[in-house]
């Protein structure tokens, strides 16, 4: 393989890796979006999942326990958010903002208490479980791009496919969608729109928790601000994907490609890295505008 082809394969391979947290979080956020609540707290929920997931994985030396902790902590936070907005009738944006602030505060304070640093906490974890037999990863080009990934990455795609099925075909998914369209009609039919909203918040928590954890695992560490805008990018993916799971997945791949490209360009060009770091946000902004115009 020529050098140029190697680089190309590397960028695409990292695109799949970088899409994993986005995919988990945006599919999670899709549920609350469909229930009629724009969940701006994805960012904070991802941070919570990353911190508690990595902390538990580090403590137990077990990635599975880490994933469970990531889900539990993010769901707890999203239930808190659901309680304040639904039970106490607070504004969902303000509470979302509050959750983002809370996540930053709690993770930094606890990082200081537990690890005595507000900077990088590195964890030594068992090597990620490969999802495919090693032989498949040896196939030129396609192997490294598609078959070199861990179970967690493959699960992100199963999560998207599963969500598509639940939303389209299950009674549960239909109730969530109906709540977003016309909550009154749902309650006239004898179902509780509040229950559907809480369920949607739980889905959001599961997705963003796992997304945050995937982010932590990909660098085997936790840093405050590890999420750095990915929760917002995941939110835009929901719009760009027009609230359809598979299109959302495609949008995540697009944003992940921008991230992968900017990572690569940072190392190998004369363009200042700080400007390159703005690239994923710029791509996201442009696609947000494109998606907005289509309405």
């Amino acid at each position, binding site marked *: 393989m020529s050098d140029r082809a190697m680089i190309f394969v590397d960028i695409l391979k990292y695109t799949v890796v970088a899409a994993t947290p986005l995919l988990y979080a945006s599919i999670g956020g899709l549920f609350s979006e469909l229930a009629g609540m724009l969940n701006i707290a994805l960012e904070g929920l991802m941070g919570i999942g990353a911190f508690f997931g990595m902390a538990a994985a580090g403590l137990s030396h077990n990635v599975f326990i880490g994933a469970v902790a990531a889900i539990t902590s993010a769901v707890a936070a999203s239930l808190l958010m659901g309680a*304040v907005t639904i039970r106490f009738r607070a504004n969902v944006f303000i509470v979302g903002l509050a959750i983002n602030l809370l996540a930053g505060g709690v993770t930094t304070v606890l990082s200081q208490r537990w690890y005595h640093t507000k900077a990088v906490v590195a964890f030594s974890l068992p090597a990620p479980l490969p999802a495919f037999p090693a032989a498949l990863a040896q196939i030129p080009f396609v192997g490294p791009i598609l078959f070199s990934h861990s179970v967690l990455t493959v699960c992100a795609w199963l999560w998207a496919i599963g969500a598509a099925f639940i939303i389209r075909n299950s009674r549960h998914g239909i109730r969530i969608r109906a709540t977003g369209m016309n909550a009154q009609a749902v309650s006239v039919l004898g179902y509780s729109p509040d229950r559907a909203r809480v369920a949607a918040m739980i889905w959001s928590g599961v997705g963003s928790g796992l997304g945050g954890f995937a982010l932590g695992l990909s660098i085997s560490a936790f840093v405050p601000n590890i999420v750095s805008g990915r929760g917002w990018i995941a939110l835009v993916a929901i719009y760009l994907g027009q609230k359809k799971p598979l299109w959302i997945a495609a949008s995540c791949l697009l944003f992940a490609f921008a991230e992968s490209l900017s990572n690569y360009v940072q190392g190998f060009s004369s363009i200042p890295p700080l400007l390159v770091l703005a690239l994923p946000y710029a791509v996201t902004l442009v696609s947000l505008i494109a998606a907005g115009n289509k309405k």
Partner: protein
Amino acid sequence: MRAERELQSPARVVLAVGVSIALAAGVLALFSQDLGSALAQFFLEPFSNRYFLGNYLADAVPLMIAGLGVLIAFRSKNFNLGGEGQLYAGALAAGLIALRVPAGTAPVVVWIWVAVAGALTGAAIGALSGLLKAFWRVSEMISSFLISAIVINVSDFFITGPLQDPASNFQTTRQIVPQFLLPRILAPSKLDVSLGLAIVLILVFMVVAKRTRVGFELRICGENEEFARYCGIPVAAYQVAAMAVSGGLYGLAGALLVIGPQGRVMRGFSSGLGWSAISVALLAQGNEAGVVPAALFIAFLSTGSDHVMMGSGVPSEIISILQAVAMCFISAGALPRFRRRQS
């Protein structure tokens, strides 16, 4: 239906203030070895002498200015989440001017240029989100956040690249020459005359809101967009204007920090201020006059937690937790009653 008790707006504020103070005390009790002295540091030290008091007030000034802007945007139902970037860009514009003007320029001229440049820079960035909302139906929350993220990266590039002070180990521009810094009051603290400007701005915005057509129409846009359109009010123009004013006041706050307490543009110096201004606007409950006590309260929480951090090892990030809790209480419209009403 669940029985609920409506919360009146003063009750929300009292609850939010009370709970966040109680929580602050609770966190201190959990984390500090010597609770008595930690509490004293949190609650009393900021007021204990001229220096601490001045610095505390200096922290409240940008919160008043930026909080006022958030409040105006709220009134028209616009939610500006790009404050961090707008503040940073305003500061950078201010730094560019204050560092480049010839040494002989009259300081007043420099201050005016710096303030105008900061405000215009922030306003342009805010207006962009307003335009996107008005004409492309793009959520102003998401666009302002994303634009802010881009602006922060680009500003960081200028601060650490072309403008980096070669003599400093920190990522910062050079110091601005002392004669271009705003005159201090309550020396040796960092408090300067921008406190007066903040108060004047709040008064001006109060008059505009209560006595002018513009203030009245802005309120109608926020309360009922459909009705405003029906009345022939140019809703799109008000959306853009509200975001521009909000961004402009963030930019102004950043510019005044550069020719005031900071004296230079440092990487990351805005961290958190953009979000705190939102807490201020929420606490003020749609009332310009409320911005002053709200800014004083949020500044008190952050000053208090800074003092405690120096003293007893609790990271100053507890301020975010306190603010988050205050926000939830302010926003809650009702307290559920846990038993059913007999009806």
